[in-house]
């Protein structure tokens, strides 16, 4: 008995020692990696605070003539700031629709067998796999013919193509982790399906909904080929404002850099809000 206790104590000590030894160097790898990630971003931020003359004139690791002029122009010119609003509007519409329709579908896939379910699931995934480049021209024609060209709805709808399958996939993973008994108990207690789904089931998969919304936001926010092709003036996303400005008014690196920095901020905010979900969520869901 004492021997066993002693050996388990020594085992615990060895464990602690091993952990301490590992901790002593293993932090270096993530640190170096994060440093590698941050360097180009630092360079972008650095450029955004320089004047065009300084950028083209001399190489420097930090801005010598610190200026906010690049940002000032973005915040005062409606073409620029509406680019951001347009992007945020279609991303929001897309995320809401994707999650709303994916919820019941994911429930169906996780709880029931029905005719053609496997084929349907695979067909949905194939749409996540389809290169947007294929769809550019047909989408322009399709959305022009229904009178939606150059609207936020057109871009939001086009992005549903890959975001709905993704949302279904993620939510299905989360829902499969919730025991069936909960559904059955609720039905015995006299809950109708819609009431059960909204009152009991959705709070249970809240973290899954968070993760799915995060991914929908992410892929809609970063996708540009379709967003650019489906808009011209009214709903023009920030990306296309960036390309047009740089091509018309010459080589304005500082301006481009400032616009780039501002596109990073919404993403950074969203990550900050879901940071606990990312850590836990990845393990529970399938993605």
């Amino acid at each position, binding site marked *: 008995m004492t021997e066993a206790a002693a050996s388990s104590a020594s085992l615990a000590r060895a464990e602690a020692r091993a952990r301490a030894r590992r901790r002593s160097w293993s932090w270096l790898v993530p640190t170096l990696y994060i440093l590698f990630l941050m360097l180009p971003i630092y360079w972008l931020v650095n450029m955004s605070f320089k004047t065009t003359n300084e950028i083209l004139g001399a190489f420097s690791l930090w801005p010598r003539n610190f200026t906010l002029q690049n940002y000032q122009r973005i915040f005062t010119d409606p073409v620029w700031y509406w680019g951001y609003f347009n992007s945020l509007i279609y991303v929001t519409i897309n995320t809401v629709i994707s999650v709303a329709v994916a919820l019941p579908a994911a429930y169906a896939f996780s709880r029931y067998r029905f005719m053609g379910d496997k084929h349907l699931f695979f067909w949905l995934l194939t749409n996540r796999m389809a290169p947007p480049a294929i769809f550019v021209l047909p989408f322009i024609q*399709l959305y022009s013919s229904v009178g939606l060209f150059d609207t936020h709805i057109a871009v939001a709808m086009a992005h549903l193509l890959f975001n709905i399958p993704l949302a279904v996939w993620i939510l299905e993973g989360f829902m499969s982790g919730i025991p069936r008994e909960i559904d059955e108990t609720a039905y015995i207690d006299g809950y109708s399906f819609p009431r059960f789904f909204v009152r009991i089931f959705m709070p249970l998969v809240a973290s899954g909904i968070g993760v799915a919304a995060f991914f929908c936001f992410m892929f809609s926010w970063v996708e540009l080929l379709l967003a650019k092709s489906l808009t011209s003036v009214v709903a023009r996303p920030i990306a296309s404002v960036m390309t047009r400005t740089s091509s018309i008014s010459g080589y304005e690196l500082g301006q481009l850099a400032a616009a780039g920095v501002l596109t990073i901020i919404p993403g950074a905010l969203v*990550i900050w809000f879901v940071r606990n979900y990312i850590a836990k969520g990845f393990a529970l869901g399938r993605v």
Partner: protein
Amino acid sequence: MTRTQNNAAWFLVLPVLVLVAFNAIIPLMTVVNYAVQDSFGGNVFFFEGTRWFEAVLASDRFHQALGRQILFTFTILAIEIPLGVGIALCMPRRGIWVSVCLVLMALPLLIPWNVVGAIWNIFALPELGLLGRMLNGLGFDYNFTRGVGAAWFTMILMDVWHWTSLVVLLAYAGLISIPDAYYQAARIDGASKWAVFRYIQLPKMKRVLTIAVLLRFMDSFMIYTEVFVLTGGGPGNSTTMLSIDLVKLALGQFDLGTAAAMSIIYFLLILIFSWIFYTVMMRGESQQ
């Protein structure tokens, strides 16, 4: 989990079905239409059969773009997957640093793709960029707008920068789901670090790693914006990937028949690869 048979579940899937079908089936029909017909304008079309397909499959341009695409995709997979797993293994498991690491690492994933291209363009400029300046300072003749090697190096480094975090996040999620008891058992058995990795961590990460490979394969096979902003497909055609070539054909040259035929071949290629991945993944699932 056992699932009950219920065909009424179709009603729950219906909204998804309608929305995705609207976006997927009508455009695909358009593509198929263009792929088998020709037009001299004025909405008059002639049936062409498989002529466009034969033209695409026989063209050097397509072969070269496909070759470049495959080389690119497998290079970045070979770098990103082991690197991502390695970094995930070294991540802290608990404490405040976990959140800090996750947030900072996820940052590149949420940067719009044209901005990723722009960031690397600015970062790698031979005279004005930090990377370009550093490499030239070290004695390399580095200019990604002129040298093919430099362009490929920059492109691959950019993709590693952009997407390795996805592999890290997935691998990390797999790692933290392993119960502590497994490690204790391994320690009692005196298992080496390699044995712990090979027989505990790797099998437990198998599912998330399959997803990582699948996502990275699909997304790198359709890469467009980042490379287009960085190099514009050049120098020459040396970084023209399949998507860039396709958009050039469809929107630049308005060569609709060839573009549509190429679209279908391109989509089928991805579909075949993805089907292979999917079956492998599902087989792994049923074993668990």
